């Protein structure tokens, strides 16, 4: 398992938070509701607090980034680029998660993420997280269940967006 890269080389500003603060912050984050204290401790040891400036690109489409973030404050947009324009497809805010795909085998980002306001988050290296899950299957199971909840919510939202439910046409399609 490689050491975590420095904040500068990861493209964000890293700030120091004591381990106790990290543990408390993780306990309060909605994503980690129901996690056992020993699992929170393990996650705290892997977390680092990061800050993104307003309008900063957190990652771009195609970037090889393995980071998973728990958002503490601020707002982030996921965007996709098309010829001539960029479209925002979802915004994420306090208490939400960014970069769940870092827990899959492929780390190439399919969307770009941009902070819409100054944003604070806890960053986890997905590779380290996966190793921790392999070593502690109970942690892995709990984490994957939480991750599945996030993915299912995103899938449901995406389906509703695809339905284009506000369109008069969607009411007429038989």
């Amino acid at each position, binding site marked *: 398992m490689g050491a975590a890269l420095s904040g500068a080389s990861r493209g964000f500003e890293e700030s120091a938070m004591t381990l106790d603060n990290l543990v408390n912050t993780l306990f309060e984050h909605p994503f980690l509701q129901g996690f056992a204290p020993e699992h929170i401790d393990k996650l705290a040891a892997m977390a680092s607090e990061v800050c993104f400036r307003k309008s900063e690109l957190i990652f771009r489409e195609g970037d090889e980034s393995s980071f998973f973030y728990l958002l503490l404050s601020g707002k982030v*947009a996921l965007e996709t680029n098309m010829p001539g324009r*960029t479209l925002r*497809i979802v915004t994420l805010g306090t208490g939400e998660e960014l970069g769940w795909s870092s827990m899959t085998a492929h780390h190439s980002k399919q969307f770009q993420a941009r902070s819409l306001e100054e944003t604070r988050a806890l960053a986890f290296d997905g590779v380290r997280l996966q190793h921790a899950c392999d070593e502690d299957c109970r942690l892995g199971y709990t984490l994957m269940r939480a991750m599945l909840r996030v993915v299912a919510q995103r899938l449901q*939202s995406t389906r509703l967006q695809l339905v*284009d*439910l506000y369109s008069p046409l969607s009411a007429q399609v038989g």
Partner: protein
Amino acid sequence: MAVAKLEREAAEANEMLPRMARVAQVRKETYDTFTLALESAGGEPFPGFAPGQFSMLYVFGNGELPISISGDPEDHGRLLYTVRSVGKTTQALVSSQPGDGIGTRGPYGSHWPLKVARGKDVLIVAGGIGLAPLRPAIHYILRHRADYNRLIILYGARSPRDLIFRKQLEDWGRLPDTQVLTTVDYGGLSWTGHVGVVTGLFRNVRLQPFHTVAMICGPEIMMRYVIWEMEARGMPPGDLYLSLERNMKCGIGFCGHCQYGPNFICKDGPIFPYHEVRSWFGRYEL
């Protein structure tokens, strides 16, 4: 018996007669949605309306449509109707010019539960043009602000250019004890608000079940997801009210076109407490 039947038929026949109104103003809300201000053409003022009620609007030579009233219930001089142009008659309606004549019947139907909501938080959830039938309720609450606790407005639309009453939403959001959250299904770089479905806004709201009355209006599929979300957050079904829409023709429970289970949407609705319609809500055949 026969006399009573004749009297009933005569009353129903009168109900089917439109009264003349004149278009006073047409205001463009978005590229396809307009608000018409109608004034009475006969000298006699319009009858009052309760927030949530609708009128039948007759565009002569085109047809008649049920349209919810979208203005302030205490503005007695004129009635506002916000219409999205989606077909021949709505196109004719939004193409009206000041001075044009429009036939009106009503106001008809049930209304939002503004008495029931007194002393409680009011949660308004609207999608697309569904904000229009809710706007009179918002006006009413803001005029009687001391009677209600927090006012929370969640509004979703397809894109930023589809948002109606945008300026008003911003103004309402600055009022004390009022939270306004708007989201769109997709937006460009100039849109810095929320992007995502309206149910996603609930995580920004501190909901107090048993102390909140929810009023919901939008596409039925949206309302279904909103209800699931609120039930998951502990809201009792009896505190959820929704505005339903079906193919109305007469507007007075006479023709049966808008039958919905044992109810007629025009006469018994369009506003229903959810627990009264949950057996039929979302059924394909209805």
